């Protein structure tokens, strides 16, 4: 066993043999792991920003950044990062300084803390908590707190408006989000991220991989929609709508503090994609071969990491794709959609999942239930979202 957990165990054993109190090796391991995760977030976010700019450019039939670094402008984000680091750090005179300084830290800390329970590969997870998925959802909800702090402390009307929209949106979309996650949790009857992935090994009818996305397709769609809203991404980007609010809650932020918000946004996108991958797309499950010259566990781990990242980055690509092809929803449409469409669908999915789990796997009932759900969803969506704008007569 040459896994991550094994190496940490060895380190603890060696330091214990030397008579060092347990707190010191624990702190050393925690610092190293946090450093690695931080480094990954920084590098990955920079390339995600570059990726987003290239994707948006190609969707709009442009080239995007082409110069810095030579090959398709790959180093553009590095140049931008250095530029942001060198910029003057401005705190507005009317701002509440303590809250203003604290806000980016809260946002980034919440995004970073969610990485603790991401199962990267078999055996490669910072800590496999019993309540893994619940922990991730609850710690991610702290991001909104940071956004409100930023919006209010800036002492700027646009910022406050952005923060309030963000709060309303987050509170509304968190309810169907959590409900949609309960489907896979009920099937696997665990909340631990590793066990959720393990429950998805194997095949259905010999052809379909046993991922929860197939029985829980409704929950997956609800989750993905809510996740877009949680990340404040189009079509749910009214908290930072550039064309009406300038940039929403982070108007007054500049230099490194702005960069931290930006970094946290992309870190959050990855967290959201990782949750979807773990609960619905089978996590690190995928075909793998023993690599020559490497132990079985290491080969399995490398392939697992590969599949996990492929699935995550595919979902992130879909999020970017949606951002550059969909229009922004109005506030009333947004609220209607969350409370009148997503929430009933999420509840119906939960009830049907429970019924099937209790009464046995009558496949017919399943298919029937999903069909009814889809019909109701389509009918509701047409009724609420497709409603024409009524012009009130003065």
């Amino acid at each position, binding site marked *: 066993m040459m896994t991550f957990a094994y190496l940490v165990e060895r380190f603890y054993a060696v330091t214990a043999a030397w008579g060092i*109190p*347990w*707190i010191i090796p624990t702190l050393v391991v925690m610092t190293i792991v946090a450093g690695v995760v931080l480094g990954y977030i920084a590098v990955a976010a920079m390339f995600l920003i570059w990726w987003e700019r290239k994707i948006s450019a190609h969707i709009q039939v442009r080239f995007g950044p082409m110069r810095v670094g030579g090959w398709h402008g790959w180093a553009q984000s590095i140049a931008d990062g250095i530029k942001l680091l060198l910029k003057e750090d401005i705190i507005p005179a009317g701002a*509440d300084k*303590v*809250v203003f300084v*604290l806000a980016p830290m809260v946002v980034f800390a919440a995004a970073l803390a969610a990485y603790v329970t991401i199962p990267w590969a078999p055996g490669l997870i910072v800590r496999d*908590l*019993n*309540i893994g998925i*619940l*922990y991730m*959802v*609850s*710690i991610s*909800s*702290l991001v*909104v*707190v940071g956004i*409100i*702090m930023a919006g*209010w402390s800036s002492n700027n009307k646009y910022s*406050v408006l952005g*923060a*309030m929209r963000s*709060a*309303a949106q*987050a*509170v509304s979309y*968190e309810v169907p989000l*959590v409900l949609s996650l309960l489907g896979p949790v009920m099937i696997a009857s665990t*909340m631990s991220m590793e066990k959720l992935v393990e429950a998805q090994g194997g095949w259905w009818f010999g052809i379909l991989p046993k991922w929860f996305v197939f029985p829980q397709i409704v929950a997956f769609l609800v989750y993905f929609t809510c996740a877009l809203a949680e990340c404040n991404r189009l079509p749910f980007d009214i908290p930072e709508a550039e064309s009406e609010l300038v940039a929403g809650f982070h108007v007054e932020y500049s230099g490194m503090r702005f960069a931290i918000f930006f970094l946290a946004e992309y870190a959050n996108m990855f967290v959201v994609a990782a949750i979807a991958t773990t609960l619905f797309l089978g996590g690190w499950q995928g075909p793998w071969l023993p690599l020559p010259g490497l132990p079985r566990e290491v080969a399995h781990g490398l392939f697992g990491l590969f599949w996990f990242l492929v699935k995550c980055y595919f979902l992130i690509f879909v999020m970017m794709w949606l951002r550059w092809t969909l229009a922004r929803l109005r506030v009333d449409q947004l609220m209607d959609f969350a409370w009148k469409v997503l929430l009933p669908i999420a509840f119906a999915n939960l009830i049907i999942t429970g019924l099937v789990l209790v009464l046995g796997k009558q496949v017919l009932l399943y298919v029937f239930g999903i069909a009814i759900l889809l019909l109701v969803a389509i009918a509701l969506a047409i009724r609420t979202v497709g409603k024409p704008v009524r012009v009130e007569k003065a």
Partner: protein
Amino acid sequence: MTIKLAIFYFLAAFTVWAAAVVVLGKNIVRAAVALIFSFCGMAALYVLLDAEFLAAVQVLIYVGGITILLLFAIMLTSRIGAKTARVINDQAFLSGIAAVGLLVGLIYASTSGIAAISGPPRLPVPETAPFLGRALLTTYALPFEVVSVLLLAAMVGAIILARRE
């Protein structure tokens, strides 16, 4: 064990400090922000007591839901964010008596009295979430349903209040 105790005292001091800012702070938005830190400190204390599920729910409900609604309400109220909110109201004496009474009661309970507070922590199972779920739906189904009905009534009441024109 001493390290765990040190962590406990640090967390407890942090929570109490944040709570003091909530009560004594002149600026109401800052008070709400401090309330968030206080709730997070409570969640950390739950983790220290091996009640992970309770900690996650604490953060999800109190920080992610209630405090955000609170901030939302504060920002919707005009000029309440001004820096001169009254901190102490006319019932300071009564509430002082209540606080001192509670303190005395807690000290008595934890030093000599009630076993449920002063006794060693009893964990029935290593994993609390399934245990809690089973208990809520079997042994404690009635209180659970009563609380649900109460919440539903509160919700209906809130909607009626909000819709009154």
